[in-house]
């Protein structure tokens, strides 16, 4: 261990650093320190979180695995949570959520991204990720986490790229020297699609309490064959009724596992995480619900611009020109898709700013107003 610095001295130094930082902020008003530091090096930012890619590998043909070192504002995450990752593509900052696959212990992040068909961000990362690339990161979020103290028996089920948050849980448990029983049940199309196959096998060899079960849905040769069936549970984890189960994967897998646990009255012990891709808007008549989260109002989408719909719902959102020029009506759309009435452009992404007066909801939409 390094030399112990007396408490008081340490606090004094930290206090000095803090007052220096606030002096710098005052001198650099109105833009703030980060806007200057990033010009020297994007990773120097103090308030925002960025991550620099330090290593890239491609485990399967359509995935890319990145090792990322976060900047100083990163405060760590809990296994199972996700972070928002941003990259600039053609001048536009795009943001997607990814669950780190690494253990929550250790300052690095590991992200595995599957290139989705027509996936803007995943495709970009798959093609262009290289060491040195700088990503925007958020603090972690999400409730899909292991409880403390850790359960003695843990069943982790995943399908396809849904492996990411549960692998993080597994690696965390291993790092913590978990003494109980863990079963890791993973569904993949074929052996070639299994992410982290070699590491999983190796982990299972080293840890007697861990059993890794690979199920292939499209070919034989795995520990199991075919899609999820309740009987498989009894086979791989006969104690699953006394365990906590964590599940992440495509919707059909989620549905069938949920149904099984539901019918046995075990829903409380099943924890799930869904990755829903941005909805593909259907054209035609107005449908869906518009929710204004700040005020808690909700109305049926009438197909009018959101500003009018908000007013119809009895709200008085700030606005000016009502024609898209003044930006007074800008609010954050937390989920759903809107069409820009002036350009026809769709924005299906979550957490983007939109102008209420020229945005028409396409299906369900949630606005922070």
């Amino acid at each position: 261990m390094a030399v112990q610095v007396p408490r008081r001295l340490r606090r004094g130094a930290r206090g000095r650093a803090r007052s220096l930082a606030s002096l710098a902020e005052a001198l650099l008003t109105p833009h703030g320190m980060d806007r200057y530091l990033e010009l020297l090096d994007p990773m120097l930012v103090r308030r925002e979180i960025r991550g620099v890619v330090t290593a890239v590998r491609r485990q399967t043909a359509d995935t890319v695995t990145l090792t990322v070192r976060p900047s100083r504002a990163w405060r760590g995450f809990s296994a199972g949570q996700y972070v928002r990752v941003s990259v600039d593509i053609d001048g536009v900052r795009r943001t997607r959520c990814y669950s780190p696959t690494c253990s929550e212990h250790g300052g690095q992040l590991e992200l595995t991204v599957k290139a989705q068909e027509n996936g803007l961000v995943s495709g970009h990362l798959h093609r262009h990720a290289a060491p040195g690339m700088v990503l925007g990161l958020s603090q972690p979020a999400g409730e899909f986490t292991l409880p403390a103290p850790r359960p003695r028996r843990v069943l982790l089920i995943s399908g396809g790229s849904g492996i990411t948050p549960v692998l993080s849980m597994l690696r965390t448990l291993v790092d913590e020297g978990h003494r109980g029983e863990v079963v890791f049940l993973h569904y993949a199309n074929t052996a070639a699609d299994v992410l982290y196959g070699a590491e999983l096998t190796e982990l299972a060899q080293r840890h007697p309490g861990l059993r890794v079960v690979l199920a292939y849905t499209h070919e034989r040769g795995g520990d199991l064959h075919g899609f999820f069936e309740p009987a498989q549970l009894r086979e791989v984890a006969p104690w699953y009724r006394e365990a906590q189960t964590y599940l992440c994967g495509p919707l059909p897998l989620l549905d069938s596992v949920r149904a099984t646990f539901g019918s046995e009255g075990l829903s409380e012990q099943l924890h799930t995480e869904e990755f829903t891709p941005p909805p593909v808007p259907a054209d035609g008549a107005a449908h869906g619900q518009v929710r204004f989260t700040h005020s808690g109002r909700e109305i049926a989408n009438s197909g009018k611009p959101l500003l009018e719909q908000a007013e119809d719902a009895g709200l008085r959102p700030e606005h000016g020109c009502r024609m898209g020029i003044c930006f007074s009506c800008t609010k954050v759309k937390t989920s759903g898709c809107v069409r820009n009435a002036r350009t026809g452009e769709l924005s299906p992404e979550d957490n983007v700013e939109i102008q209420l007066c020229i945005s028409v909801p396409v299906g369900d939409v949630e606005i922070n107003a």
Partner: protein
Amino acid sequence: MTGLQDRLTPEQVEAFGREMDELRQRIVADLGKEDVDYIQNLIRTQRALEVVGRGLLFAGFFPPAWIAGVGALSLSKILDNMEIGHNVMHGQYDWTRIPELSSQRFEWDTLAPAENWRHSHNYVHHTYTNVLDKDRDIGYGILRMDEGQKWHPYYLGNPVYATLLAIFFQWGVMLHDLEVEKVLKGERKVSELKEVRARILRKAGRQLGKDYLLFPALTGPLAPLTFLGNATANLTRNLWAFAIIFCGHFPADVESFTEEETENETRGQWYLRQILGSANIEGGKLFHILSGNLSHQIEHHLFPDIPARRYPEIAGEVRAICAKYGLPYHAGPLRKQLASVAKKIVKLALPGGRSEPSPEPEPATVKRERELTAA
């Protein structure tokens, strides 16, 4: 004076509006990385100028260093306010979804808080451009800048007020948001302005603190020189911004409108009003950048949310469309526009105005149309 409504026939206005919409659409579809790189490079240049300028003032005892420092800092403030701040806060880069370029989050290096200005400028001025009694930028509640403003002996001081406004422009912009004249007229209650005032106090405190307390204090014995240097940089920016803005709106031929004229305006009529109510300043590339491309005031007023670097590229087309519809396109070099504004400021100090309508020929297009129907 020709009313707004009889400029073009309703069909013409509509066709004209459509052409403008199409032009806009084409640029919007073309926006991309180059536009972002442009503004980010400009931001980098501005930050570098600022750091260099502030740094040089630490050697302010050496006159060339002081002068260079003030120069760099003035340029930095001009870029920050004009091509960066003004344009970013218009939402020109909101499509990038980059938080630092978001109209809602940007804050600029001047006394007026962004939040207040977004209301008074983006909304009030850009929606009601040159509509008397609605556009508070006509004379800023201080000057008589339009013949439609009723004369009062107070306006004898017009040239003096204009000079003072030019010198203290950032203060003027800041106080403008308080809408004092509306309070005096009883149209607004003082209590309604609590938030605006609180924001002003907060922002102005920080701005004044850094320019007139912290930086001078840090330079120790040079404090008076640094103070003076910062004041000079602010002054330079003030005079420049005043000149550019006044030349964009108040040269002789620019028109103003009444509320009745602009009631139930269509999009085409709105575009039309923007053209008649603005004027361009001719100049080189650097001049356009330093003016925040407000030298392309006409294009800016037509498309306030399109990145300003695109204005020069579409100016020719806008001009051609104006020619096609027989509309004026006010433009001239800075010298000429400044002289025209100065003349107006002096002339309007004295009584006179709309009571004596100047005989003006009927607009060409309408006449041609009538002749056509007659034929």
